[in-house]
């Protein structure tokens, strides 16, 4: 719909002079066909296309198959593979220490929705500059197939039996927590995922991208809502989505102008959302939630940009951190002089 951004091809250097393989990592040790591998591939592609400077990105993760994947992309970026469920706090510290970095964080549904739910919600309140990607397969892959908190009520799995509890919808959780960028993708829909990831990386605060990423080892039967089969059949994109880099014109193809909503991002890039089913408005949290609940009822996998609010200050702004990152301050800034020190002592 929008003019396709002049995509660099794999072997031609991008805007910062890097070729696609410069964004690769170690070979994946995940299962063949795992959704997480598909997502990692899109990350490499997106980073290449956007011309990210590897040293301006940090990769963060928790523990799980999903959380292993940062080793498989952006090998020239620093990264930290934290504890199970506790990546958000590590991210908070790292991004406050150096607020010029942007984080590309990968977590799993168990990592975020089960053990990590509290940290996830509190991270979102603080609104750090990061893309929080959840590779959501409804199970614990790495520990071999138990239900995670995002498994749907009634899901039957060979190993884990029947899940009797309602699922946690990590997009709904993000919306209620006040997150300004909430999207859902599907590992089987690469084009949309790339657009969402680009927009997420351009967002000034925390962007949640919950990607249905099937676990071929433990949860990929067609009747499971986290399977490839189900996703292919029941994915309902809210809109056709196009990412427009800064300085480029939005050119609407295919769709009537009036049918497209333009979302401006903080760095000057834009998203063009061409309406599909309805003129979905991501600015209203209550409607977003209503739509999510309705989709759950009807068994749809709703994808796209579900909620957007570009106004909320980032955490670095809330903490009023100055230009120079905390981690780069030198002793001259950090150690008060003798006189000032003496003046304080005089008061005691």
């Amino acid at each position, binding site marked *: 719909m929008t003019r396709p951004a002049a995509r660099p091809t794999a072997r031609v250097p991008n805007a910062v002079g890097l070729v696609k393989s410069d964004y690769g990592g170690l070979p994946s040790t995940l299962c063949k066909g795992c959704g997480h591998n598909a997502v990692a591939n899109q990350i490499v592609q997106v980073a290449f296309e956007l011309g990210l400077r590897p040293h301006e990105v940090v990769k963060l993760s928790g523990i799980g198959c999903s959380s292993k994947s940062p080793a498989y992309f952006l090998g*020239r970026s*620093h990264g930290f593979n*934290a504890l199970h469920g506790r990546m958000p*706090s590590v991210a908070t*510290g790292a991004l406050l220490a150096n607020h010029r970095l942007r984080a590309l964080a990968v977590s799993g549904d168990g990592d975020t929705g089960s053990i990590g739910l509290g940290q996830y919600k509190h991270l979102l309140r603080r609104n750090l500059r990061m893309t929080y990607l959840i590779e959501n397969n409804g199970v614990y892959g790495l520990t071999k197939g138990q239900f995670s908190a995002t498994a749907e009520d009634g899901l039957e799995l060979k190993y884990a039996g029947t899940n009797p509890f309602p699922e946690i919808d990590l997009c709904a959780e993000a919306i209620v927590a006040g997150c300004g960028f909430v999207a859902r993708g599907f590992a089987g829909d690469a084009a949309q995922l790339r657009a969402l990831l680009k927009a997420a990386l351009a967002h000034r605060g925390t962007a949640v991208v919950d990607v249905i990423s099937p676990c071929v080892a433990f949860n990929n039967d067609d009747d499971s809502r986290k399977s490839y089969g189900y996703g292919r059949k029941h994915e309902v994109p809210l809109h056709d989505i196009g990412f427009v880099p800064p300085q480029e014109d939005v050119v609407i193809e295919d769709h009537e102008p009036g049918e497209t909503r333009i979302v401006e991002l903080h760095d000057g890039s834009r998203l063009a959302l061409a309406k599909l089913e309805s003129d979905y408005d991501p600015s209203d949290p209550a409607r977003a939630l209503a739509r999510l609940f309705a989709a759950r009822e009807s068994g749809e996998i709703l994808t796209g940009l579900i909620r957007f609010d570009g106004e909320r200050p980032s955490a670095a702004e809330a903490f009023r951190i*100055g230009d120079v990152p905390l981690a780069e301050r030198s002793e001259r800034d950090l150690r008060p002089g003798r006189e000032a020190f003496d003046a304080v002592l005089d008061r005691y």
Partner: protein
Amino acid sequence: MAVLQPTDRSAARAGGDGVRVNDFSLVVATANGTGSQTANLALLRSIFLQGVPVHGKNVFPSNIQGLPTWFHIRASAEGWVARQAPEIVVAYNPRTLHEDVAVVPEGGVLLLDDGLRGAPERDDVTTYRVPVAELMRDVDAKPTLKTYLANMTYLGVLAWLLGLPLDVVERALLKQFSGRRSLVDANLPVVASAWRWAEERLEKRDPYRIEPMDATRDTMLITGNDAAALGSVVGGVTLAAWYPITPSTSLVDALGAHLEELRPEREDGRDWAIVQAEDELAAIGMVIGAGWAGARAMTATSGPGISLMAEFAGLGYFAEVPAVVWDVQRVGPSTGLPTRTSQGDVAFAHALGHGDVRHPVLLPGSVEECFEFGWRSFDLAERLQTPVFVLSDLDLGMNTWMAPRFAYPDAPMDRGKVLRGDAIPDDFGRYRDVDGDGVTYRTVPGDANERGAWFGRGTGHDADAVYSERAEDWRANQDRLLRKWATARELVPEPELDVVPDAELLVVCMGSTRFAVDEARARLERLGATFSLMRLRALPLGRVAREALETHARVVVLEMNRNAQLRGVLAADLPEVAPKLASIAHLDGLPFTAEQVAAWLKPHLGLDRARLAKGAGA
């Protein structure tokens, strides 16, 4: 009675001339949340302003309003500051009236709110009755404020009794209110009217006096938490992440205040951030994240928080991330006694985390050291690239102590082995032991030299930080970590050691118990019993400590916990000296008195009970 222990009645006896100058212990019994803290601190500071060494301890309940609180003041020309059974008792709390009156020793002084009903009569003590209601009658203030102001009555009467001039009290109040005159003006009249009432109506019948001396020049009055905060600011802290918990909260409060003043916001913003995390698990996670990203980061907590930090502590150790963790200890296990002091986390913090971990632990034993370790802990954490635990305690952290004026750091910051930009070699590997001391070079995110990029993790890794399950990689890495531990032994602060030639006995202590130990030692010396004394200031043990333990025939490890934790750490580290490590381990939430310590040490010194009792009372 829970807090005051009338064990040493003879202590109140006056000297030969019937007068006790600049040497007494006093307690004020009030209810929590009634504002008595201002009166107490003003009294403390008035004595200090007269040049007399003094110390104050607040023994308060874990609630906000209405429960009993006892404020101890010890004035001592000799400079002793350990807790001591009170000779003067101010009984202003109806709920504890009976116990408070009972605790006054024979010959002691009782100052009583005359309005309290049913106070038992004591004809063996000097009793002064303060007509609080009458003194407050003409005070024009809102009822809540009036409750607060009523405490100024005992301040006024005590000031007169002790011989503290009103203008000294006024200066003390002004300091107390950080110079805000209006607050002084609201309080001072009540003090003055009580002072005058006492002058007119009381006859001084007790021996206790303050007389000006010159022992507090170049001396500060400060809490350990405040000192720690100031030290951290000077140490260049940039990120503090924490979760409120008594008794560490005031450390972070002070940190914010000092940062606002000493590193004020510039036009573009601040060079620091204080994050109130959602819990301690998140707080330490933020600190680890910031440390990894190259910032000086810290947290402050107490026992329950330490428990919650266990998993991250292990990650920090193993991924080798600098971090500073203050544990202002309170009584555990579990929620325990949140407002009572303890040394009960030493062993746990030293080895916090599953698997084979070990953390350097700093053990401040004074407010000066709280300040010093405030900055030194960052140097150590970055030099060793590991979490460093600083174990203070409620007594040290929340109470007001004298200290020589703090010394500005004598060396620039030591940021350790950090490589940036072109300094990063082509063959950079995060965990390669280039120098052979077990401490490897690190790079930090954001560096444009991408050769330095590495992926930190709590999983097994090789020297290049790449995931590895290989047995050899595991062993090689662990062997290096042991080399680093050997390096740590040389870098942590040495103990304060006072060896008495030919002494058989070495007493080992740590932290705030040292005040009672020092005083007990002086008492015991007067009885002719001498011993060497080693105050540990850090774990692991370095050469000096080891030698002291090896060269003394007998050792007593004295500590404030039940399980003899420090003794256990020493025994595990130096099994060869273990048999001679006798233990004195005691915990009930109250700071030790010199009397207690002397009594405990006696059997180790071959002193008989009778002689000691005499001596201890001296």
